[in-house]
């Protein structure tokens, strides 16, 4: 009986582990998943090794859910291996989908990252200035480490990806819907993001409070104001990424009285989420004078980190 069940795999690369947690967050619904499929590889929970995957027939796994961006040679090898063994490769979560938070490291060179981490942090003592190398040995055998590449890449910049499950991390209802979609007979178009195409504002519980026209003299950070729990966050001057972020999550952050940070990526028909968010936010500035516009925009301290928080490697800026 078990042999007829479709096989699925989970793997993580450059990510925080939250996406693995998200699978566990399915709670009792994970039993339905387990009943429907055989999980053949899931290093965080099951003791299978890379060798076991290598021995599987190519294409024998129905779907691999891979979370995390690609930064090291090992991650790239695993992405290629799992691509070969799987009929469907699903980029799971923001890092795999668009590069995610680790992708912001692309604002720095590889050298400056290594220097900061291995030489400059206050808790580091490294007088010999030792850096990790791919090979090292002192006569007692050779040790190897994966190499650390010059930049972070989204999964589809390394291997072909069939579907995307967005979110940081993807919510249980998005995961269950995605799994049901993949197990059901009707597969969506290759390359689809498995959430609705609209912007988050369309399903925001506060959408009725969004004024026809918003005009702002300054932008606010959440800790600077008492946030009204019923009114549109943009209208309150908060940098809410809702207008340039894909729907599907039903706005849990906004329900928690915090602005959307954009983890689900761009809505359909938008190539670059950050540029679209920047466009939407800048047009709210209530001034026609260049200097005053600059002064209002100065209340956005970190534009790249705000608009491209999850999507820098996959953006047009990465070209």
């Amino acid at each position: 009986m078990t042999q007829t069940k479709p096989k699925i795999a989970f793997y993580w690369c450059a990510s925080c582990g939250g996406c693995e947690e998200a699978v566990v967050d399915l709670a009792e619904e994970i039993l339905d998943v387990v009943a429907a499929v055989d999980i053949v590889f899931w290093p965080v929970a099951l003791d299978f090794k890379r060798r076991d995957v290598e021995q599987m027939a190519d294409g024998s796994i129905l779907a691999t859910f891979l979370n995390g961006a690609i930064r090291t040679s090992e991650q790239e090898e695993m992405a290629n291996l799992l691509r070969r063994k799987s009929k469907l490769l699903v980029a799971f979560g923001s890092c795999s989908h668009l590069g995610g938070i680790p992708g912001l490291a692309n604002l720095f060179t590889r050298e400056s990252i290594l220097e900061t981490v291995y030489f400059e942090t206050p808790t580091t003592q490294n007088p010999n200035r030792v850096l990790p190398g791919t090979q090292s040995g002192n006569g007692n055998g050779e040790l190897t480490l994966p190499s650390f590449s010059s930049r972070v890449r989204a999964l589809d910049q390394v291997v072909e990806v069939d579907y995307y499950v967005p979110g940081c991390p993807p919510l249980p209802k998005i995961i269950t819907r995605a799994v049901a979609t993949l197990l059901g007979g009707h597969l969506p178009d290759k390359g689809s993001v498995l959430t609705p195409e609209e912007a988050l504002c369309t399903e925001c519980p506060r959408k009725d409070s969004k004024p026809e026209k918003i005009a702002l003299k300054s932008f606010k950070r959440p800790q600077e104001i008492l946030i009204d729990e019923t009114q549109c966050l943009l209208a309150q001057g908060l940098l809410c990424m809702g207008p340039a972020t894909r729907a599907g999550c039903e706005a849990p952050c906004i329900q928690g009285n915090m602005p959307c940070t954009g983890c689900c990526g761009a809505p359909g028909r938008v190539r670059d989420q950050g540029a679209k968010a920047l466009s939407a936010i800048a047009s709210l500035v209530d001034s026609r004078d260049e200097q005053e516009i600059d002064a209002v925009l100065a209340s956005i301290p970190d534009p790249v980190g705000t608009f491209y928080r999850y999507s820098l490697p996959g953006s047009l800026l990465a070209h």
Partner: protein
Amino acid sequence: MPDVNSNLSQVAPLGAEELEPKIVAFFCTWCTYMAADLAGTSRMKYAPNARVIRVMCSGRIDPQFVLAAFANGADGVLIGGCHPGDCHYQEGNYNCLRRARLLKRVLEEVGIEADRFRLEWISAAEGDRVRVVINDMVEKLKALGPLRMKRETMLRGLHPQEHPVQEVCV
């Protein structure tokens, strides 16, 4: 995937051997595009480095267009719109200005210098201004050098090609 690149796909990536900078110029149909027409019919001579794309209003220029131009090999992007107060659609050029000011900060943060992205108000009567602006921009871009090469060397972290880096061994 929406294709914001389709208009720009003809802009070939700049090779190392080419020294002429490529400018993608988005001109508002009511003012700067007319000015460029006027420059042409007046037989003004200016640098041939700009590829003009006509838009209905500078407010129509999505920041994605600017990024797509840079991503497809442009060394500079020029936007030409109506003078403040003269927008055919009342507010379009002001929205363009607001977006451009914020976009410039993003571009500089990822290593695209301020002189590579320029916004100018040029009315339909100012054909000579088109000549002056494009000539000036070409000079500045020549001084900066090709963007793509610069990004390959300086911004290795952001470039899609993988560059092998020497590992430092213990």
